C-alpha cells in the first residue's frame, strides 16, 4: 500500500501561534459601503446566549458565512439552565463590522443575548492552547494553511 505521505509524519514543523495582531496601516480608502474593508481590524470575543435547540450552531455559522464574516474561534457549551447554551465566538473584524455582525446575530430568533467580552486576545490565546493539542495537519492542506 502506498501512502500519500508517511504516517506518522516525520517531525513536522510545529506551527507556532499566529503572531500578535498588528493593525493594518493600509492607505485610507474612502470607498463607502464595503462589507469587508480591512482597516483597523481587531480581535473581539462575543459571548452569545442561545436557545439549546438542535441546529442552533448551524444557524449561527450559516449567518457568519452568509454575511461574509470569518470566525476565528468558536466554543459552544452548556449553561446552568439546560434550555440555554453559551457560544464564545472570536472574530477578527473592525468596529463597523463588529456592529454589523452583532446586529445580524441579534436578529436570530434563537439568540437570546450577546455581549462582548474584554480581553479577546487572552481568550484567543487560551483557545489556541486547547485547539493546538490535536494531531498535526499533514499534507497539502497543511502547507496551504500555514
Amino acid at each position, binding site marked *: 500500500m502506498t501512502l500519500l505521505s508517511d504516517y506518522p509524519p516525520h517531525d513536522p514543523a510545529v506551527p507556532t501561534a499566529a503572531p500578535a495582531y498588528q493593525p493594518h496601516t493600509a492607505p485610507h480608502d*474612502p*470607498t*463607502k*459601503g*464595503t462589507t469587508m474593508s480591512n482597516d483597523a481590524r481587531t480581535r473581539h470575543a462575543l459571548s452569545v446566549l*442561545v*436557545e439549546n435547540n*438542535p*441546529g442552533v450552531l*448551524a*444557524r449561527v455559522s*450559516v*449567518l457568519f*458565512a*452568509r454575511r461574509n464574516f470569518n470566525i476565528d474561534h468558536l466554543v459552544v457549551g452548556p449553561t446552568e439552565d439546560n434550555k440555554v447554551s453559551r457560544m464564545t465566538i472570536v472574530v477578527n473584524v473592525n468596529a*463597523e463590522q463588529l*456592529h*454589523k455582525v*452583532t*446586529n*445580524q446575530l*441579534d*436578529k*436570530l*430568533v*434563537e*439568540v*437570546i*443575548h*450577546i*455581549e*462582548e*467580552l*474584554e480581553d479577546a486576545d487572552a481568550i484567543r490565546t487560551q483557545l489556541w492552547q486547547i485547539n493546538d493539542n490535536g494531531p498535526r495537519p499533514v499534507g497539502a492542506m497543511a502547507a496551504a494553511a500555514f
Partner: protein
Amino acid sequence: MTTTHIPDGATTTAPGDTGGASVGAELRTGAEALVGTLERLGVEHVFGLPGGAVLPLYDALYGASVRHILVRHEQGAGHAAQGYAAATGKVGVCLATSGPGATNLVTALADANMDSVPIVAITGNVASTAIGSDAFQEADIRSISMPVTKHSFLVTRPEEIAATVSSAFHIAATGRPGPVLVDVTKDALVAAADETMLQLPMPGYRTPTVPSPEAVRDAVELMLGARRPVLYVGGGCLRANASEEVRQLAELTGIPVVTTLMARGVFPDSHPQHMGMPGMHGSVSGVATLQKSDLIISLGARFDDRVTGAKDTFAPKAQIVHVDIDPSEIGKNFPTAVGVVGDARAAIAMLVTEWTRRTAAGAAPDYERWIAKSLGWKRRYPLGYDAPSDGALAPQLVIERLGAISGPDTIFAAGVGQHQMWASQFIGYDQPRHWLNSGGLGTMGYAVPAAMGAKVGRPDATVWAIDGDGCFQMTNQELATCSVEGIPIKVAIINNAALGMVKQWQALFYSERFSHSQLPSMQVPDFATLATAYGCVGLRCDRAADVDATIERAMEVDDQPVVVDFRVSQDAMVWPMVAAGTSNDDIQHARDVRPDFGEDE
C-alpha cells in the same frame, strides 16, 4: 466584564392574543391540531400540494374551513402565498410535502426573504425515527432554508405543533416581515397532541421598538438644515401600511419623493412631488434627485445596489437619515448620520409631529431652488420610448394601454426582466398593494402564481399578470390551477421571442453576441393555444391597431382566466439605464444620450 450590551427587549412570552390554555377536550392528532391552529389564526386560504409525508395533514384538511388550493408545482404555491400576502397584507400560507416538495419551495422562500413578505411555509418530513437515515423523500429543509428565511422550525413532538405554528405566524407578521418555515415530522402529525402550549417562549425574539424621540429630533434637525433633501421611500412603507403618513410628511415638508421598485404606489405617481423611481431603470429625475441631494431621508428602503449604482460615487454630497424597522439595515451599506429604528408608520408620524412643532416654533427651511431643479429634470426628461425600427408592436405601448384601459383599481403582478421595468415605468400606480413583483431576488416566473394568489386574496379586483415569454414558461402550469379553482386572472405575455433583458445587456456590453438569449420562434409554444389547453381564453395581438380592442376583449372575460400573447418588437430596450457597476451620474436617458443636470449648487 461587559463592554457592549445589546439592548435586550426580549420577551419571555410571545405577545399576541393567543395566550392561556385551551379547554381540555379530547386529544386530537398533531395534524388536526395544526389545521385547528390555522383556523384559530383566521387563515382562510392555503396553497399546497400533497405527498406522502403530509398525508395525515391533508386528511385533517379534508372538510376543514380553510380553503386549500391545489397548485401544480410547489414553487407556484410559494409565489401564490407571496402574492396573497403582498396584495392583502395578511400572512400567506403554503404547504408542501417532504424532500422535493419542500426544496421546490426554496425559491419562493428566498424571494419572500429578500422582499420582506410575510409567508408561512408548512412542510412535512419523514418520521423523526427515520431522520438522518436518508429515508425516501427526506431532505433537511430546516437547514436548507436557514439562510433564506426569517426563521425555520423542525417539529418532532406533537405537543409543540400548535405552539410552533402560531409562533411562526407571529414571527412572519411582526417586526420586519419575512418567510417562516415549519417542518413537521410525519409521526408528530399522526400522534395525539396535547394542545395546552399555544406559543413558544422565544426569549430571543424582539418585537419592534418605538422610535427614539432623540433620533426623530435629530432627523428633523437635519431635514431643516438641508438645502436639497429627498424622501427615499422603500418597500418598508408598503409593509407598514404607511402610505398615508408618507403623503402627509411629503406634503407638509414639500420635499421631493422617489419611490423604489418595491414601493411603487405607496406615494401616488400622479402627485406633483413624485420624481419617479430611482435606480438602474429609474427615471432621470428620480435618479438625479437622489444623486444630487444633500440629505437622503430613507423610509423603509435598504440602499440596494440597483438603486445606488457604483457605491463609491452614490450621492456624494448626501448625509443619510435612515428609518428602518430592522436595526441591522441601518449603516449596512452606507454610513448613516441618524438612524431611526422602528415601524415606518410610527416613525413617520413622529417625524410629522416633530416637524410641525419645529416649524410652528419658527424654523423655515428653504427648498425652493431644489424643488424647482427637480421639477426641471422631471419636465425635461420624461419617460418615453421610440417606435421600434422593425415596425413591430412596441412593448411599452402594450403596457401603457393595459394600465390605461384596466383602470386604477387593477392589481399588476410582473415577472422579471424588461417587461417588469416597463410595467413599473409606463403604468401609473396611485395606490399601495397594486404592484407586485420580485424586486430583491429577481425570480423569473413570479408573475402568474403571484397574480393567482392576489386574485384569491382580492377576488373583486382585476388582476393582470404582465409576464415575459421567458418567465411565463417557468410557472405557466398554474393556469391549470386558476382554471379549475375559478381564479380568473389575466395574463399579458410580452412576447419578444427572447430573454429580453439578457439580450439587452448582450447588445450593450457584449458586442451584440446574443449567446442563448434568443428563443428560436414566437410560435413554439403557441401561447394562445396553450391557454386554451389549460381551460383559459387565449388571445393574440401583433398590431398596434389591435391593442386596445384585444385588451378590452380580455377585460370582458370575468369567469375564466385570459392569456393574451402580445407579439412585440425584438429590439426594444429599457431606458433610462444606469449600467451595472457605473455611477448614477452616468445615467443614459436613451442609448448614448446623457442628460445634462446643470450646475451643482
